[in-house]
């Protein structure tokens, strides 16, 4: 089965092609030199940006020519299934991917009927992103942490999930991005925080430990954000600049401390056979290291996406979910009726 997957839930325009569970291509707009080839400007969020990029990204995933002079050719007739993120995400952005998927499903009709369409939940994509090249045992417990989500999910089997903990306010990645902004590092600055934190002293600020109640598996990051803001707001710019690595380390540590603490509680409560960790923040090597250590202490195996591109938003993970849904026969019945669901629940 060949699957073309499209993902436009937030800032990145993504497309991928899979053959069953194997990734053939995985294109992410911000991580390719698409713009050099094409020469466009890159606005961040909006619908227009996705609309301008979507054909390029899909063509690249399919190995079709980006410009008339280019010679490469993929083959449309190979594609059996088109997969698209239905939600959750930014509504106008989701709409672009869905419209494109609908259009393609109808246009490239295979022997009379259109190509089959599968609607995918973005969060399920993040869960399954850890499944590539890994053998998963169930029940598994998944920590997925990104700019938009922070969740602990019990995975009984593929397609059977239960959210057991989630953020009550900001997502962990969002908190890291905002801390970067407070330090004058721009937004989003999560990756810069990671780089700085490597050499910083995480003990120079005393950060609060929030949601201490052991019964609660939910997260909260707005309190530490506020505390951090307050601790640095009156410091002279030179002092912040001088100790910026230390401040980054303190903030990052307090975010990770909470992620670890709550994940540990969830492991103790649900006693999974395996751990999963995914989402954009999982690109952070320090966090990966800490989670690996935790898994070792529990003597449980942990699986994470095998490359960075599978941690951040990508279409390959959407394709993998679609593969399993297609195997179960879960297709969109009426293509015209498919609508975006900005706050789709798992």
């Amino acid at each position, binding site marked *: 089965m060949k699957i073309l997957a499209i993902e436009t839930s*937030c800032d990145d325009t993504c497309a991928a092609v899979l053959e069953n569970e194997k990734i053939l291509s995985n294109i992410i707009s911000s991580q390719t030199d698409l713009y050099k080839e094409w020469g466009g400007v890159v*606005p*961040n*969020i*909006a*619908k*227009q*940006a996705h609309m301008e990029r979507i054909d390029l990204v899909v063509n690249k995933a399919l190995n079709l020519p980006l410009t008339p002079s280019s010679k490469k050719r993929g083959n449309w007739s190979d594609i059996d299934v088109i997969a698209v993120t239905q939600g*959750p*995400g*930014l*509504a*106008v952005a989701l709409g672009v991917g869905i419209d494109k998927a609908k259009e393609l499903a109808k246009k490239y009709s295979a022997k009379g009927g259109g190509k089959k369409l599968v609607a995918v939940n973005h969060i399920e994509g993040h869960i399954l992103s850890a499944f590539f090249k890994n053998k998963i045992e169930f029940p598994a417990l998944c920590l997925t942490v990104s*700019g*938009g989500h922070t969740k602990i999910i019990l995975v009984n089997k593929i397609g059977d999930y239960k959210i057991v903990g*989630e*953020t*009550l*306010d*900001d*997502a962990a*990645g*969002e908190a890291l991005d*905002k801390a970067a*902004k*407070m330090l004058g590092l721009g*937004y989003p600055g999560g990756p810069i925080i990671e780089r700085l934190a490597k050499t910083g002293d995480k003990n120079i600020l005393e950060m609060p430990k929030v949601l201490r109640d052991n019964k609660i598996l939910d997260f909260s990051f*707005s309190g530490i*954000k*506020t*505390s951090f*803001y*307050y601790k640095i*707001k009156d410091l002279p710019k030179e002092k912040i600049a001088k100790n910026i690595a230390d401040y980054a380390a303190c903030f990052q540590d307090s975010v990770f401390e909470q992620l670890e603490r709550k994940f540990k509680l969830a492991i103790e409560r649900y006693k999974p056979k395996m751990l999963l960790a995914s989402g954009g923040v999982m690109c952070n090597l320090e966090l990966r290291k800490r989670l690996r250590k935790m898994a070792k202490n529990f003597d449980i195996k942990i699986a994470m996406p095998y490359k960075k591109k599978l941690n951040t938003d990508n279409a390959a993970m959407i394709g993998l979910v679609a593969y399993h849904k297609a195997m179960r026969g879960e297709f969109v019945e009426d293509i015209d009726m498919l609508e975006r669901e*900005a*706050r789709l629940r798992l």
Partner: protein
Amino acid sequence: MVFDKKEIKKIVSVLKSGGLVLMPSDTVYILAVNVSQKRAVEKLQNFKNRWIGKAISVAVTDLEMAKDYAIIPKNEEILYSHLLPGPFTLISQGKHKLMRGIEAEDGSLGIRIPDNKLILEVAKKLGGPISATSANLSGRRPHYSVDSFIKTLSEKKKKMIDLIVDGGKLPRNKPSTVMDIRENQMKVLRKGELVTKNSQSFISNSERETQKIAQLVFNKIDKPIILGLSGELGTGKTTFSKEIGKLMGIEEKIISPTFNIYNDYGDFLHMDLYRINNQAEIEELTFFKIISEKKIVCIEWIENLGKNNLAKLKKIANLKIITFDYIDEKTREIKI
């Protein structure tokens, strides 16, 4: 807490006949009597072992009823409309229509418009104010359940209560903030849940107090509105929006919309323009389309809308800007 007409009728008839009623309010349990009746007021004073010179605040239905009993100049009226109904007792100059003991020795009168349907309905049916003094013996702590109050009473006192209206366990709200507003002096005499600097500026010391301020704002909403929230990171904009959503009956978790830009909850829309950098993005979000057809929209980082869009929004919608400022780590000033 829902009370039917029959119960309200019964309360009103007990009050009319000079009785003492123990009933729930938006803050604590209160002792209600018909303050226009001398006998009823004396009974209350006896019950509370109260020195007659010390005043007892009253609950009225609205500003109109307040004006029947107190002199409220235009500048004080603004305070009434901003703070009430809500957890405040405002002290104005009395018209001496009520006896001493209700009015203070200097002729001032403490007035509440509780955010509580039962009390408002009772005062309306009675056609005049009722006492809104907290149910405790003078100098003791207020009570949040009928049982805890009754336990503190002697048999003799118990018999003095003519009717008990049990509203169950009340949330542990503090008693109202008492403020003397005469001649705009704004003196806080008792600090309750909320403290205000002036009619439009509140001090919040906790997440809970920010929620209370959101409640106060919510109670005044009578037509579709856009609440534009402006303030630094971590000053309580999301806490405020979450409470508004909760008051609208949204049951699911309301989380920060920074990443998604906006979360749509039906009648309620929660938006965050933090990540918006330019005007074109507002257009591409189809901003003006999204916000129409909503009852309440909370927009964090409203300043990122840009001058022109803000001017346009002001023209076409009922916009209220609320600003959040740090005073110190735990304290915020919220201007409504």
